């Protein structure tokens, strides 16, 4: 499988990338690690006219302790996030989830910014940043703006990023304990049939992988926890208001069942880790 023809440009800076994006935002795509976009291009589900390779833009691969939060450069590869001492100390959920994405080869190339901007509800990292109440930093022709994770994931492969904007940094509040991540799949490297990221440090937040057309929070579970419910009671409300899809991997009914089981396990694990 070979992608449709495109013009390739290699950006040396964010300004390069934004300038080229502005020329024709609708038919220009940014390429970071390429592990979400290239498979789509090979299937001709994406046929950008211009591909702007931002993979070598300097200064966008870092995991930094920024006081009350951790700042992560959008071009940070999953492997670098997985082994980052700062991430492991202050946002261990994110380091753990980065180590669960795909397989080692994918983690050597894929980037957090690329994964989040792709907006696939079956991906693990969007659920992790949603549970961590992250803030996305986007640069564009109208300047820089911050987007809350809860406003970022809009629909299937759709985010709040405008076509002429570039995600440059992810800011995640510190949550050193009281977290858990659960996912269920049939083969080691597969996308999760259902996954759960839970953070009980502060207001309980529970985000779900593959339980709708976009990454979603388990609002029913969060409400139940806030009202003092135990893990099993809260987990029973995991798929409240959600419409998971049926596909060749699982029926919607099975996904709802998995969500209840995995949310319960995640809540028990997170509570034990909180001590």
């Amino acid at each position: 499988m070979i992608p449709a023809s495109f013009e390739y440009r290699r950006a040396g800076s964010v300004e390069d990338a934004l300038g080229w994006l502005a020329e024709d935002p609708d038919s220009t795509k940014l390429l970071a690690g390429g592990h979400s976009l290239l498979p789509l291009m090979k299937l001709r589900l994406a046929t950008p006219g211009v591909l702007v390779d931002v993979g070598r833009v300097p200064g966008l691969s870092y995991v930094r302790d920024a006081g009350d939060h951790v700042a992560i450069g959008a071009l940070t590869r999953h492997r670098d996030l997985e082994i980052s001492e700062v991430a492991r100390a202050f946002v261990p959920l994110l380091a753990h989830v980065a180590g669960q994405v795909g397989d080692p080869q994918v983690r050597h190339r894929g980037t957090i910014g690329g994964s989040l901007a792709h907006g696939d509800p079956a991906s693990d990292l969007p659920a992790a940043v949603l549970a961590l109440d992250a803030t996305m930093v986007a640069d564009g022709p109208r300047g820089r703006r911050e987007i809350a994770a809860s406003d970022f994931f809009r629909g299937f492969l759709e985010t709040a990023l405008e076509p002429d904007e570039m995600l440059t940094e992810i800011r995640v509040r510190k949550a050193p304990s009281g977290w858990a991540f659960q996912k269920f799949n049939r083969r080691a490297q597969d996308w999760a049939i259902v996954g759960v990221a839970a953070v009980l440090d502060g207001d309980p937040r529970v985000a779900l992988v593959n339980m709708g057309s976009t990454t979603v929070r388990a609002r029913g579970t969060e409400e139940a926890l806030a009202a003092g419910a135990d893990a099993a009671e809260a987990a029973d409300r995991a798929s409240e208001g959600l419409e998971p899809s049926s596909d060749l991997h699982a029926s919607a009914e099975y996904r709802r069942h998995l969500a209840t089981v995995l949310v319960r396990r995640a809540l028990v694990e997170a509570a034990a880790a909180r001590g």
Partner: protein
Amino acid sequence: MRVTVTVNGTTETHDVETRMLLVHYLREIRGLTGTNIGCDTTSCGACTVLLDGESVKSCTLLAAQADGEEITTIEGMAAPDGTLHPIQEAFHRHHGLQCGFCTPGMVMAVASLLKEHPDPTEVEVREGLEGNLCRCTGYHNIVQAVLAAAHSGELVP
């Protein structure tokens, strides 16, 4: 576009289509057909090569992304006199292959795995090879081969 890539220590410059995948570049332009194309969907790992020492799936990279980089393929593992690399030797000795189609990708994935985990447990080996499928299901001996290679004392970290 023009790309300059060092493959197994040899640097060459070629004009390629922007959409050319790294695996096609290696096989068709460089003539190195040891790297196999299996699933072509980033799943099976048969096309695994090293990019600056790290395992990557060459069906999911553009040749353009390898411009200026160093690639190692299975052809670059044995010594020039034909002496097998310790990982290859271990696969040979422990019968870590049946049909052999996944083997080049397995060996390259193992090279990267052992760089990150020089003294892996069996679980770390199994998880570290989650990106490589063996349709013969010969995983048991592959894992034994990797553990033997790690403990052979012949690997330069």
